[in-house]
């Protein structure tokens, strides 16, 4: 099996993802310069908000969805040793998602969808934006179906055998995404599209925000699972060792899927439409979801230690120095874990009901988000890209040195940009503002941080350029050939027999259904039963 079709499919998805990424990086750099107030010539509220909205959509929805789909198709084919199920179906999903992206881009670039990449009425975008976003999600559902079908095909052919861990994680992500996308899909289909088309006159923002909160938290785990898949299934092999525990990895993925869903209300801590009791319930759930991250931190570091010691590392920390730091994937995980430590600390602040009040809607949130998503999650996407590119293109990576330079500059740029961003939040700078000049004394204290952020952002822009250059050079200019395949890490203790609950999702889907009913049942139902004034629930 040469996987030629799968390689083409994965590469097509990856290129859409990275082109979106490159455009979004340019916009990010512009936004930072515009917002700082140092460059009067580029100041424009309209352009700024159109740019922020497009930047967010490209990074948060296009880069992630396409990258995850491409990555998963190839992981499924290579780990199960099965061809991708129904080629036309897979390309149709790609086409629908791409059409959605283009449709949404039109109003975004024209300034008619400057709603800051969220779905929060009463901010209203052009209907094309909502329709495009829906198509992007619908396209991704084709991928969900493909993954679940391939998983079932393999299970049927190999009853009682453990599903390869990489595919177990990928299927977990597909199931997570299906559950996750229901909230925003219901909001967009029943509220935002009819409202933006003028079919209904009123809308209930409380219900809309609750439905969006359903999606808003687990979506970040949808983005994160490929990163964790690489942590568990690819990195230990690249580092020259073994996975510390296959069972622990499965438990972490299951916990991630189950507990990332019923906890979205930490986005609504400062909102009036939900009662404190529900918020506290979700707050507790938010702390539970840190558990799989701690398991991951432990297992992955243990796996790296095994590798370091096998490579001759001695003493308490000698194994760290013995790791292959020049391997892009190993370097990406080391830098990613460092950012996870900082970002995770910030996340605990956000998750805490009381402390959240101090940082809610301040620049702290944007700083946190960039560090944990743009940092930990995305740097591993780069690591994956450097590892997959030679496999997919059949050509060796243009430059390993350039790849490690890129990862280092991304890490350094991200730290330089996000540290002052967090501080600005603590100094009272609101998030989502196009100008920081409305109070002399306060903004004077912000200026040094703004300058530092620009410096960090420019390093990030340079780093993004290096990534695209290296990938393009590899694919389009290399003359040598490469015939390697993706190699998955073996667990130190081979898994031959697994209890059914660690090898299937039936039970967990039932658990999720119960949790979602508890966490979102009444909070959604109340909008249909309570007396409201002036705004009807679905517009009737």
């Amino acid at each position: 099996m040469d996987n030629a079709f799968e390689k083409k499919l994965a590469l097509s998805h990856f290129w859409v993802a990275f082109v979106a990424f490159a455009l979004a990086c340019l916009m990010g750099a512009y936004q930072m310069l515009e917002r700082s107030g140092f460059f009067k010539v580029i100041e424009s509220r309209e352009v700024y908000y159109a740019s922020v909205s497009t930047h967010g959509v490209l990074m948060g929805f296009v880069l992630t969805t396409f990258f995850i789909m491409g990555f998963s198709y190839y992981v499924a084919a290579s780990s199960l040793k099965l061809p991708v199920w129904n080629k036309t179906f897979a390309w149709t999903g790609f086409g629908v998602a791409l059409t959605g992206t283009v449709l949404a881009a039109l109003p975004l670039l024209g300034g008619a969808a400057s709603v800051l990449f969220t779905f929060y009425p009463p901010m209203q975008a052009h209907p094309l934006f909502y329709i495009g976003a829906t198509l992007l999600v619908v396209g991704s559902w084709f991928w969900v179906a493909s993954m679940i079908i391939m998983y079932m095909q393999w299970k049927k052919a190999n009853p009682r055998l453990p599903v390869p861990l990489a595919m177990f994680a990928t299927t977990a992500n597909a199931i997570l995404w299906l559950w996750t996308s229901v909230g925003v899909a219901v909001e967009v289909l029943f509220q935002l599209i009819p409202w933006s088309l003028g079919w209904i006159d009123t809308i209930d923002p409380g219900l809309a925000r609750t439905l969006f909160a359903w999606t808003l938290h687990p979506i970040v785990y949808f983005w994160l699972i490929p990163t964790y898949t690489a942590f568990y299934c690819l990195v230990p092999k690249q580092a020259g060792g073994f996975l510390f525990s296959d069972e622990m990895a499965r438990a972490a993925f299951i916990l991630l899927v189950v507990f990332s869903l019923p906890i979205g209300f930490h986005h609504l801590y400062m909102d009036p439409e939900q009662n404190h009791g529900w918020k506290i319930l979700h707050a507790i759930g938010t702390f539970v979801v840190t558990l799989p991250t701690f398991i991951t931190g432990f297992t992955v570091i243990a796996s790296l230690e095994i590798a370091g010691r096998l490579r001759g590392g001695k003493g308490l920390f000698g194994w760290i120095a013995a790791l292959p730091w020049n391997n892009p994937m190993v370097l990406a995980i080391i830098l990613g874990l460092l950012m996870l430590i900082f970002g995770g600390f910030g996340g605990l602040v956000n998750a805490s009901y009381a402390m959240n009040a101090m940082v809610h809607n301040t620049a702290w949130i944007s700083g946190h988000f960039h560090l944990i998503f743009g940092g930990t999650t995305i740097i591993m996407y780069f690591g994956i890209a450097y590892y997959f590119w030679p496999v997919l293109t059949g050509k060796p990576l243009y430059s390993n040195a350039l790849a490690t330079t890129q990862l280092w500059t991304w890490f350094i740029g991200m730290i330089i940009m996000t540290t002052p961003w967090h501080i600005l939040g603590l100094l009272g700078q609101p998030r989502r503002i196009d100008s920081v000049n409305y109070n002399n004394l306060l903004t004077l204290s912000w200026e040094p941080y703004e300058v530092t952020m620009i410096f960090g952002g420019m390093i990030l822009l340079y780093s993004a350029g290096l990534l695209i250059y290296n990938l393009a050079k590899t694919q389009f200019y290399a003359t040598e050939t490469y015939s390697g395949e993706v190699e998955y890490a073996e667990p130190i203790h081979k898994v031959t027999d697994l209890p059914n609950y660690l090898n299937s999702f039936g039970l967990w889907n039932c658990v999720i259904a119960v949790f979602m009913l508890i966490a979102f049942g009444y909070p959604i139902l109340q909008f249909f039963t309570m007396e409201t004034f002036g705004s009807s629930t679905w517009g009737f």
Partner: protein
Amino acid sequence: MKKFILLAIFCLPLTAAAQPATQVAWTAEQLNFVKAGNPEKGKELAQTCNGCHGVSGISSMPGTPSLAGQLPTYLYKQLQDYINASREQAVMSALAKTLSKQDVADLAAWFASLPPAFQSNSPMVYAKAEKLVKNGDNQRIIPPCEVCHASNGHGQKIDIPGLSGQNAEYLATMLKEFKNGGRHNDIYSRMRSIAETLSDEEIAELSFYYQSKK
């Protein structure tokens, strides 16, 4: 009893302050009503208006506003405010009271459908005005004008009026009226609280700035 009378006297200003700035509330029904205004009917009714506001809704009388291209919601609210005495001006108050609610919506639809006024690009630079429009003034807690009236000065929903191309004398008169409380149909005193901090020189500059903006 004395205490009661005293209490009643002290509460009197409260009842005065409790008068709303306008009787128009933007419910979905109200918005749909304005949206459904018939411009053709409005055109017929506008015969009465043409003398002062111009045949194409562009006024050549300095103190009289041009109405062409204005937001229909703004025009509807102003006429309703004249009818309800939330806004007062001898001629307009008398004329508005002859109109039905439907007439008001039709007139609003007609004037909103006309191409807006534009006088000429001015070579003058209105630095003070431009600073207020783009940055406001944090010392006086004035937000930038363009935050509400939009950076092109075309206004925005629901009923923030467009100012670009409007004649300067009318704009200056209105800002002064807001400043001295003569005009008081702005919800939450939004314009009154801004205008009361503006100097006459700033009012004049702002008026010319918007008149020369396309």
